[in-house]
């Protein structure tokens, strides 16, 4: 092989190939440094001895660098002020000692902490590729870990929903069976023997009551199914919201029975006399809220409040009651399907657990948002407003970009309904 011709490197090429170069004289006084050393070890620019800036970790005997006969020596230099570790070769060239050294972090994080960037590594240094490969593997492992966590949570949610659905089915079976049993029982009694008029009439009343209960349950299930399948259409028409509220309150009075509960209506003076809204759904929303309040209030007051916020042109309703109250933790479950506040509530009061979930679905279908919260004091429960945009022609329905409601934090203080802007 021919002798290697002498190579004259341009300064830029030298800097790119050896950014951490250190050149000393025979007495190990620093004469020149590469751009990486100049940036990271500024004290090396002072023309001082190498040992004033670095400690020698290898070779063990520093005299090996200047001993006659030693042309190339493996070196590890550590900056005395910290943060820089260099590895490479010290080569004796004529009267100079050239340290062809480079940075050697074990991870990119370590390199970043030392203030290193790509420019501090030789353009020909493949160790950077190895560091990058390790980092890519580490990043992939982190992604997979996150993915496993997400899938685990999704599985848990699915299992929880499955359990809730099973409980719901068991619950609905019971709710259906009870009135059905009453209907069949009293019908059989009527068919077997002739009974005095008042007795027979009372049996017929019980049959009718049972049938009505059954119909209400079936209607709830059908309503929910329609919402789930996204078949519920919004049909706006002109409506007097105050009169609608009065009608609903009258119906709710019929549900109170003999309980010492007073119903009140609070109508905002600014409420328009006519609004463009799906009155059927609005009626259903009001009746769901009122029925819920009647169910859980044994004495005291129930107030239906209906107002109008302009702008943005939202109908805002709220129902407050002096009922048994609800813990802040249970609020989050209130509007979920198949769920009541807790199992003891279902056992005490019955019900499918769909009412408030249907309410939420209807409000969302009408472009509103549902907020709920419980005031700090015990024994009082307030249901938050369901805003409905009154002008169907301006509202944006469905489509990309519409988010679901943001569940209000439980335990908000104050019993005031929250006006929420409807979707425009």
């Amino acid at each position: 092989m021919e002798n290697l011709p002498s190579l004259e490197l341009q300064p830029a090429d030298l800097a790119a190939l050896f950014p951490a170069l250190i050149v000393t004289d025979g007495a190990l006084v620093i004469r020149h440094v590469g751009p990486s050393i100049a940036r990271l070890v500024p004290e090396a620019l002072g023309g001082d001895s190498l040992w004033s800036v670095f400690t020698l970790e290898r070779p063990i005997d520093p005299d090996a660098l200047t001993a006659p006969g030693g042309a190339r020596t493996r070196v590890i230099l550590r900056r005395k002020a910290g943060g820089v570790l260099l590895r490479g070769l010290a080569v004796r060239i004529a009267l100079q000692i050239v340290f062809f050294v480079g940075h050697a972090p074990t991870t990119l994080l370590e390199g970043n902490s030392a203030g290193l960037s790509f420019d501090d590594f030789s353009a020909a240094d493949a160790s950077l590729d190895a560091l990058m490969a390790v980092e890519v593997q580490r990043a992939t492992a982190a992604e997979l870990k996150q993915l496993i966590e997400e899938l685990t949570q999704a599985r848990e949610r699915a299992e929880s929903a499955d359990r809730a659905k099973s409980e719901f089915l068991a619950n609905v079976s019971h709710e259906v069976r009870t009135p059905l049993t009453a209907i069949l029982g009293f019908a059989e009694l009527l068919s077997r023997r002739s009974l005095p008029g008042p007795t027979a009439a009372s049996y017929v009343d019980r049959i009718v009551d049972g049938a009505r209960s059954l119909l209400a349950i079936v209607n709830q299930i059908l309503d929910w199914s329609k919402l789930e399948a996204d078949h519920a259409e919004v049909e706006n028409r002109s409506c007097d919201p105050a009169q609608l509220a009065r009608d609903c309150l009258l119906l709710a009075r019929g549900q109170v029975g003999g309980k010492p509960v007073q119903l009140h209506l609070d109508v905002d003076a600014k409420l328009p006399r006519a609004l463009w809204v799906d009155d059927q759904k609005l009626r259903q929303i009001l009746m769901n809220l009122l029925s819920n309040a009647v169910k859980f209030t044994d004495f005291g007051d129930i107030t239906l409040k209906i107002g109008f916020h302009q702008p943005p042109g939202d109908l805002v309703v709220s129902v407050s009651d002096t009922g048994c109250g609800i813990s802040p933790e249970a609020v989050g479950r209130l509007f979920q399907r198949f769920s009541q506040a807790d199992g003891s509530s279902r056992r005490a009061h019955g019900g499918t657990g769909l009412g408030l979930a249907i309410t939420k679905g209807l409000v969302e279908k009408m472009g509103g948002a549902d907020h709920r919260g419980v005031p700090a004091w015990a024994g009082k429960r307030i249901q938050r407003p369901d805003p409905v945009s009154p002008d169907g022609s301006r509202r944006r329905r469905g489509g990309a970009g519409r988010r679901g409601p943001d569940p209000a934090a439980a335990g908000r203080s104050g019993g005031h309904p929250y006006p929420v802007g409807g979707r425009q």
Partner: protein
Amino acid sequence: MYGMIHRAARQMIIDESGPAVWASIVDAAGIVDEHFIGSTIYDDAVTLELINAIAHATGLETAEALERFGEYWITFANSSSYRNIMEMVGKTLPEFLGNLDRMHASIQVSLPGARLPTFEVTSADASEIRLIYRSQRVGLEPFVKGLMQGLLRHFRTPGRVDIGPRDATGARVLIRLG
């Protein structure tokens, strides 16, 4: 394209429009598995369908959607598990741009099937930086423009990015500083 691109797109849509919109995009693009792995290479057809579905769902032209995505991508990369790489590439805008090509070359060692672009800085001074962008893929210039805009924002450097049409040498990028 490698999955990090798709992961960023997913996160952008979820951040800006919500999970329901992302679900509709996944449906529209015919994507079976929406859980992309950053270091896995996906067929370009998947990427194309995803970009089209995003443009349609957001009501933007494809070029505008690409540009917005490019800008978002920088923020995503700097907060993701790849942030150490992003930081090592450069601590200033000129340094980062100067090492962009080396970063892609280095990553290619870990992603052998990836067809990564090249970026060559042709000049840089206090008033402007000029690069040439070359890629085997066509039509991603708006995404590159967004990337550059994202870098300007990341390094808190006021400036404007223009990218010319592609020719035989590539597409010329001009970043006017200040």
